[in-house]
């Protein structure tokens, strides 16, 4: 997957300082890049609010043009996410050529 036009990006919703988030991710052995959300003063994170977050896990798949193409506000279905990613990666590769 490394060479493909694909990136897994996290948004940690717990509004840690970056250093704290790094510790959490090391402890949990998580190896992707993640935003850390910032508290908005009303008990929510700025990013989480903007994305109308209801809970985790929540996934969005965004295509190479920046459009939302899939979302899932629950435990993801492996097969569907795989299919969507494959299709969109093919689209991205097609456009890149």
């Amino acid at each position, binding site marked *: 997957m490394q060479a493909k036009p694909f990136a*897994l990006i996290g948004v940690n919703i717990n509004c840690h300082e970056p250093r704290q988030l790094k510790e959490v991710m090391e402890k949990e052995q998580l190896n992707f*890049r993640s*935003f850390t959300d*910032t508290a908005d003063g009303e008990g929510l994170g700025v990013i989480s609010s*903007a*994305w109308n977050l209801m809970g985790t896990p929540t996934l969005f798949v965004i295509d190479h043009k920046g459009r*939302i193409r899939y979302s899932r506000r629950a435990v*993801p279905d492996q097969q569907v996410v795989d299919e969507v990613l494959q299709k969109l990666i093919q689209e991205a590769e097609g456009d890149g050529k």
Partner: protein
Amino acid sequence: MDRMVGGILVLVQCMSVAAADEAQDKRPPTPEQQCKALLKEYDDAFQAYTRTYREAKTAQEKQQVIHEKYPRPDKCASKLLELVEKNPGEAFAEEALIWILTNEDRLRRIEPWYAHETRYEKIWILTSGGRQMGVLSKEEQDIRSMAIDMLLRDHVASPNLGRVAEMLGSSHDKKSAALLRAILDKNPSKEVKVRACVALALQMQARLAIVKQLRADPQAAKSVEQSYGKEYLEELQRAVPTPLEAEAEMLFAELIEHYLPDMKPASVALLCQQLYYTDDSEMLLRALYTMDKRDEVRGVACLVLGQVLMRNADRQVLGDAKIAEKIHAESEKLLEEAANKYAEAKTAFDGPVGRKARSELFDLRHLSVGMAAPEVDGVDQDGKQFKLSDYRGKVVLLDFWSEH
């Protein structure tokens, strides 16, 4: 995760009773005592498993605990069944059979999705508790089927079958449907009957959804077979949607006219919301939305139907854009109706219908499939500033997560 294990524990604990003072008693234990001892043994093993699971530190360790310590209920179930077979009709037999059907569990091979990303192995294990729904083994099927037979034969009028009926709502086999029908015919308890009818409706809805899916996409056969077995697949491949739909409509009408009026609006609201989490509940929700006489029920059904349609439109990502647009438009209409006409109706766990509907309308207009992703601008775990749009040109899987 803790909450989920807690839920299972409570269930198991309710059903277990401290073993009698067998040590002082020289006589061989009665079947009832044997039954209690078996349940206690299972309960103890389950508690030991939960403790060890909590103590395990890494995802790998937890996975190992699941593999090694998870007490399979089918082993306990087969011993219970043997006991019931020798002593049919006794009071403990009913408890044992209910235990078998409500604790039936499916410990399956854990297949982490996204094997190259540790993150998703973890999500999978945490959310599924290491269990995966799937086809029961031949042995498990036999246990289940015998337990159903015996309940049907000896205990069909029991007032304690509500929970069993509810569980059978997610089953797909003919036997469980037969038990539910028998409960509707013979059980005197209104409460048990309501749950049996809801369960039958859910079974019908699921069957219909699969039949339609198989017609639309023959490729789906593989996953249907994987999930429900070859026999069921073949039965559904032979089924014709139209009469099945008519049958479902009759059942839904029976449910709404005869049984649901006995249920409090709050319970029906909860049912509507649960329908969001089952696949293809559109038809049943439409029936509730158009046929239930109570505004507080229709409001919640209207909201959830709007939500389900939004999800259906989003799912068209691999399908037809025109169809997606049409579903999207109907979803917007329903959500607006929910926000305006039914604003005061109460959902079971999402607050007033109006507020939830407005929040869903925001999703529909800004966060649904086809919309431009809102910018995310923030810092990463190294304190480095970056933006979601930095990844333009790449497909991004944006994952909102929490370590809690």
